[in-house]
């Protein structure tokens, strides 16, 4: 009798213990619909789209080079957990966050979604498809803030119209523009793709300067040499200078070169030096902030 009882007891114990196995993330799903969301954003740009809708993500990846949130939104992310760089997110921090949804950029997450799906439902965005307006509306739908998304876009479009007017007043219609970036190592010209293409050529109505369209549409920029700058024949040049001292020195040297001084845009004082952030942050909030700066620049 005693041994039989012992066997039964051990079987019961075994069953009880095995029932304590890994808990599934199922229960968390219901939270999402209630609007009580805990979103983990694995793209700095999606983070800023969320911020544009008035939602602070519970966790977000940081800028790869900065190892921190982008400077123009840092103060809005004080309570947000850092999840490492987008290229190599800190999985443990993500898991510890217990998010109700994970938003990610297809570029980084494309390979193994399984890992993320295990933690929470995953929403993948292809940031190369459509504009930030589309991404913002898609997010708006997910978080039940369609109205805010629509208003944000309308707001932006209204402001853009004003700035466009200012620009045409200053430079005339159909003026040609280009955007370049000066780093310590090289000089780059931006193409018509994100981050600089849409805001300059679609929103502000500039015509791409000669050769800008030749930049591979799948690449954000192309490296050029200073000698070819005159060939672009741009009426306006937007210059993004990296924050480090070497880049600043490189730009100063370029400004003193005879090639630079001979440029049409330089002679007419239509060179606009802009900071890398928010201009290179292709998101709803990033572009809005850039537009605010543009408004100030051209109202002078």
């Amino acid at each position: 009798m005693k041994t039989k009882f012992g066997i039964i007891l051990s079987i019961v114990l075994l069953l009880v213990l095995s029932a304590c196995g890994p808990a599934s993330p199922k229960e968390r799903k219901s939270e999402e619909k209630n609007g009580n969301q805990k979103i983990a954003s694995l793209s700095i740009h999606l983070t800023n789209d969320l911020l544009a809708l008035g939602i602070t993500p519970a966790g977000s990846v940081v800028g790869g080079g900065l190892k921190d949130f982008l400077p123009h939104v840092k103060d809005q992310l004080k309570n947000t957990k850092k999840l490492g760089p987008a290229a190599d997110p800190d999985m443990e921090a993500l898991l510890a966050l217990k998010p109700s949804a994970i938003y990610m950029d297809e570029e980084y997450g494309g390979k193994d979604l399984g890992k993320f799906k295990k933690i929470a439902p995953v929403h993948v965005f292809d940031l190369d498809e459509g504009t930030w307006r589309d991404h913002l509306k898609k997010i708006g739908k997910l978080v039940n803030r369609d109205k805010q998304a629509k208003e944000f876009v309308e707001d932006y479009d209204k402001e853009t119209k004003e700035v466009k007017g200012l620009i045409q007043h200053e430079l005339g219609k159909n003026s040609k523009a280009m955007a370049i970036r000066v780093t310590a190592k090289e000089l780059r010209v931006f193409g018509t793709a994100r981050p600089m293409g849409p805001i300059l050529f679609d929103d502000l109505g500039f015509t791409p300067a000669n050769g800008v369209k030749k930049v591979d549409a799948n690449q954000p920029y192309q490296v050029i040499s200073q000698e070819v700058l005159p060939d672009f024949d741009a009426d306006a040049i937007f210059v993004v200078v990296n924050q480090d001292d070497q880049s600043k020195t490189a730009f100063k040297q370029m400004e003193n070169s005879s090639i630079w001084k001979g440029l049409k845009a330089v002679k007419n004082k239509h060179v606009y030096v802009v900071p890398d952030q928010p201009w290179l942050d292709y998101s709803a909030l990033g572009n809005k902030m850039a537009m605010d700066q543009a408004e100030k620049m051209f109202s002078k």
Partner: protein
Amino acid sequence: MKKAMSPDARRASGVFTLFVLISIAAILISLNTGTLPIPPLKVIQTFFGYGDFTSTTVLFDYRLPRILITMLAGIGLGISGSILQGLSRNPLADPGILGLHAGAAFGLIVYVTYFHSLNEKASLFIPLFTFGGGVAAAFFIVLLAHDKFKGIMPIRLILVGIAISAGFGAVTLFLSLRLNEDTYLFASRWLVGNVWGRDWIHVVSLLPWIFILGPYAWLQSKTLNVLSLGDSVATGLGAAVQKRRLLLLGTAVGLSCASVSVAGSIGFLGLVAPHLARRLVGPMYQYFLPLSGLIGLVILVLADTIGRAVFAPNSIPAGVVVAAIGAPYFLYLLARTK
């Protein structure tokens, strides 16, 4: 009837047991290190299947594969270094210094450039590409360092290795400049020894290399002992010198290239581990070869843990930590061998 152990063997087995314990400790420390704190007791619980969702995921999906990769890579590099030092009869030989890693990097960049997409299944082929690059580097090194009369000359080997390293490095740099920014970032992080393999698939891709080539090298201990004595003595003792040497060189290349393919280009480990091992148990390969692998394991696991923990949340690559210790040691040896 029990055969009495020689004092050498007794000492070796003692030291070996000690290092097994140290490596277990290192592995446990590493398992406990991470952004998400898990108490040691829970780690043990989880291992026996009683963990909750969080601890199971963290341990089995995130930490364990990475630790296994560093363990295997450490063993691979330790053994590879031991073989190379014996073959070249040069205490300064190391797969990184000899240019094998540069060859492996070249293979990796070729893979990334032309076969792209670092997707899941394709990871299995990465060791093959790095091995191909390593073999190419080894071929040139042997070709250039070989003297018709004197065989492979130890000092020339190092110099040729540096040249080969620079040559492959230049081609790699050229190719990597054509990559897009993300792939370039990956390549540059790989080159400083960032343990990028984090998934079980990478463990699977590395495991057969170490498990086949490691024991093979150990079985060849006698040959290695003989070869370290020099070609003429080795031939006199009846070893088929050239054939054995090529086979063992291939083994060393395979071990190091497979290791660095998922663990990143980690230098100096193949130099330091054999040295410490030889100091502890003497120059007989049957004793110091396995110990060298074990020391490689301990160093790499600890280096990766330190890189992750001390500088959290911005981890630094394990290769940098190893080099910070290994490079001064290399200089010390260089000064002494004069």
